[in-house]
């Protein structure tokens, strides 16, 4: 099976599904699931393959597809999440309108993501990138109303990103007259640091927007909360990671470690700046997430913060940090998708995801609770989940790299994460069950199944982190990092090793001991929720649940400091642009002379910029 065939199946299947939907919705559903499963199987079979093939000649440029371990890792994540979210969609989307369109877009976005990771040159990368962006836009605004506004916000920022990408791409072409990534990479080491930096900055804008790196994140909270839940899982789980892929490609494939290390030194180096940006991305969104009342908005802000960890690991640029960042990308894909699906299941059953009005759902949806719990534990980075290992790697890198302040931000962000993760768990599942949710049922099988798979991944990679770490180590080595001493249970090292098996068995044994003690004591009486301490009174119905303003004291402390300054800035900017446009209308005088003058001015600016690059 070749890469071209895969993409043909992926895109063709998507359109076939759309057409089949006109005939029979059931067949459409089956085909969509089958298609994603087939893609998953094919991608899985690609494991270990490397190679590049040209598939098309476009205006004289050779467009090529390429596979290596790096793209395989991303592709398998795409394919897994794609199939799971499609299965999840089956019951979640049931009864909604324009379903053919929904499935078409889902499958096309998946296919385009596969296209991105398998692209061997900048042009096909760009084409797939645009398909993905527009498909995402259509899916985000699927629900219309506020969703349309969120989608517009997304696509405007996406276009800005694409423009930056095009600038970078053409600039590279101008220098090396090829679009092929591998060709550019082999020649770029001779370029001046200033030029490299400018290209990197341009690409960083593109990928930073997709990756929702502060200060380019503002599209994400709206988009995540407005999109349909299965797509939110894809969006947060893998789609924004295309930005991560872009960062890896531009930093370590295009430019390469060696050239990268020459870009400035100490605090003023490129990757240190990126790391600081990542630290800000961890810190601020974590606390904004804490203050949200909509479950999906909490998760959306949390996605931004977690992306911060990924970029932090990758930006630091040691083999341990790179491994941590890459592993965290996988982990984030698993637990954030799981969380979005679980919230989706709750929303599907109760009709709301408002953290203030839910409560006590654990009595009705214990399975969904367990899944949310596992997802939340992974998010926190609880020992025995995969999030722990990746965060441990990142922390260790930072501490031993003498960056304790970045480490502090990362660790502190984790404690913020605990707060909002528990808030989600508590406000949805814990506490008293309100009257109106007495009739809620457990999620259907097609929702349970993807959640189970994801939770198994979380636990498995948490106890045996060696499985993904070995793959990541291969990638790292291929990119020129030092090889790590990876075992199946973690990492051996002189400065503090990690052994998850030890942790697992210690906790298991002490669990058994405590459980035996617990069992030896008299059995306790199971009581209803209204048999509860209320200072001697009977529990008032429906008014005995603490959810609103869950962390009120913290809110009061942080509220003056934690505001989305960036969003406010962009909004002000948008307002200013509108005024500016009103003003510029007056420039269209209709006289040829003035237009000529504008063009001259513009050229002058361009020339100055060009000169500026050279001087730098």
């Amino acid at each position, binding site marked *: 099976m070749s890469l071209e065939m895969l993409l043909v199946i992926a895109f063709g299947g998507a359109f076939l599904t759309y057409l089949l939907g006109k005939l029979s919705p059931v067949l459409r559903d089956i085909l969509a699931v089958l298609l994603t499963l087939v893609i998953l199987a094919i991608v899985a079979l690609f494991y270990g393959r490397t190679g590049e093939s040209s598939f098309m000649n476009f205006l004289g440029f050779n467009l090529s597809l390429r596979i290596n371990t790096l793209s395989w890792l991303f592709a398998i994540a795409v394919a897994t999440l794609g199939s799971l979210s499609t299965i999840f969609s089956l019951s979640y989307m049931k009864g909604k309108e324009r379903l053919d369109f929904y499935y078409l877009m889902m499958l096309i976005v998946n296919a385009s993501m596969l296209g991105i990771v398998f692209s061997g040159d900048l042009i096909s990368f760009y084409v797939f990138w645009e398909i993905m962006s527009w498909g995402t836009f259509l899916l985000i605004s699927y629900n219309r109303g506020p969703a349309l506004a969120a989608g517009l916000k997304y696509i405007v920022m996406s276009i800005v990103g694409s423009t930056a990408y095009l600038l970078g791409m053409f600039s590279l072409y101008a220098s090396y007259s090829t679009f092929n990534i591998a060709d550019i990479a082999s020649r770029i080491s001779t370029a001046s640091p200033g030029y490299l930096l400018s290209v990197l900055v341009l690409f960083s804008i593109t990928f930073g927007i997709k990756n929702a790196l502060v200060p380019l994140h503002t599209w994400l909270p709206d988009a995540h909360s407005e999109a349909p839940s299965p797509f939110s899982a894809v969006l947060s789980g893998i789609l924004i990671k295309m930005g991560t892929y872009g960062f890896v490609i531009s930093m370590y494939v295009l430019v390469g470690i060696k050239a990268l290390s020459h870009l400035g030194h100490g605090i003023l180096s490129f990757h240190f700046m990126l790391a600081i940006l990542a630290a800000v991305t961890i810190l601020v969104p974590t606390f904004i997430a804490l203050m949200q009342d909509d479950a999906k908005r909490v998760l959306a802000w949390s996605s931004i913060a977690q992306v911060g960890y990924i970029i932090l690991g990758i930006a630091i640029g040691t083999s341990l940090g790179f491994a941590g960042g890459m592993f965290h990308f996988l982990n984030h894909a698993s637990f954030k998708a799981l969380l979005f699906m679980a919230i989706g299941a709750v929303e599907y059953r109760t009709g709301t995801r408002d953290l203030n009005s839910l409560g*006590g759902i654990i009595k009705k949806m*214990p399975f969904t*609770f367990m899944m949310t719990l596992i997802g939340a534990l992974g998010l*926190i*980075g*609880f*020992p025995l989940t995969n999030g722990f290992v990746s965060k*441990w790697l990142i*922390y260790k890198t930072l*501490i031993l790299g*003498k960056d*304790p*302040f970045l*480490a*502090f931000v990362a*660790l*502190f962000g984790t*404690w913020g994460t*605990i*707060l909002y993760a*528990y808030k989600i768990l*508590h406000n949805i599942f*814990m*506490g*008293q069950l309100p009257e109106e949710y007495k009739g809620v049922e457990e999620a259907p099988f097609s929702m349970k199944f993807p959640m189970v798979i994801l939770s198994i991944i979380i636990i498995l990679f948490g106890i045996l982190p060696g499985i993904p770490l070995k793959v990541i180590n291969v990638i790292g080595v291929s990119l020129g990092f030092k090889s790590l001493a990876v075992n199946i249970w973690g990492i051996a090292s002189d*400065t*503090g*090793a*990690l*052994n998850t098996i*030890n*942790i697992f068995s*210690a*906790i298991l*044994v*002490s669990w058994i*001991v*405590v*459980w035996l*003690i*617990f069992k030896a*004591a*008299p059995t*306790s*009486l199971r009581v209803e*929720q209204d*048999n*509860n*301490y*209320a*200072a001697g009174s009977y529990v008032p119905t429906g008014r*005995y*649940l*603490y959810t609103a303003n869950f*962390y*009120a*004291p*913290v809110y*009061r*402390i942080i509220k003056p400091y934690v505001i989305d300054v960036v969003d406010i800035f962009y909004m002000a900017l948008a307002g200013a642009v509108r005024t500016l446009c009103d003003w510029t209308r007056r420039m269209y005088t209709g006289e040829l002379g003035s237009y000529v003058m504008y063009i001259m001015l513009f050229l002058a600016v361009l020339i100055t910029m060009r000169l500026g690059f050279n001087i730098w």
Partner: protein
Amino acid sequence: MKLAEFIISPILAFIIGIFLMGLSRRIMARIHRRYGPPLMQPVIDLVKLFSQRTVSHGPIFDIGVILSLAGTIALILFIPFGGMCPLEASGGLLVILYIMLFAPLGLALSGGEGANPNISIGISRKFILSLGYEVPFILIVLAVMTYYHTISAVDVVKAQSSFHWALFSLPLFLPGLAYILIIPAMLGIRPFDLASAPQEISSGPMAEYGGKYLALAEIEHAFSIFITIALFVDMFLGGSGNVVYFFLKVLVVFIIGLLINAVFPRFRTEQAVKFLWKWPSVMALAGLVIVLAI
């Protein structure tokens, strides 16, 4: 030998923790100008609690409290203690930092199913407080790890052998003091007992606990007294290869902490967080800067 440590160190920790609990009640009584309970009182309480028949609110109510104690017991195995550290090569201080999460998270989950707003408020306060004390605590741990350039607790202890105690070294003096300031917050005792403030929210997370649940929570508290102080002894007082010396060091630190908390009332939540983000954090930060500068 190694295998025996797995059994001995939790049991010793339990004995020391329970002894410290009894001792603290006794010392507090003397400060109150009264006689105080027998030293064995915590054990008597535990015996009684385990014999009681109480109520449960659901499976997570049980699992949470078991998880919290299990995590704490597992944590003991990672802490160098009198020459023993059964799981020394399994992640070091970073893992300790994370396994310390088991106890509050387990209690929070268990209490959450208890479906009582007092519990929820208590948990919310507990997490807020932990957000408060983790700032100085992380800074302190980072200062220690950066100074000794290792994340392994055993190596930190080794580096302080032959009386090169970190508390009396220039860079780590301030973090050491900061740690003493945050010990009551980490243990949730006065003046930082706002999570379980009985006069405000009816003992918060414990409100629905009785019998064995309370007993497990008490044991967990005994362990965490030991762990918190043992970490201090390991990081700043050079640990000890001898259990008796180690115990003496723990005792001294504990009594100093006790005298502080005898005369202070409870903070309000915001005041506690502001205090913790102010003095201990500034001290720890100063220590970290000095460590980096050297």
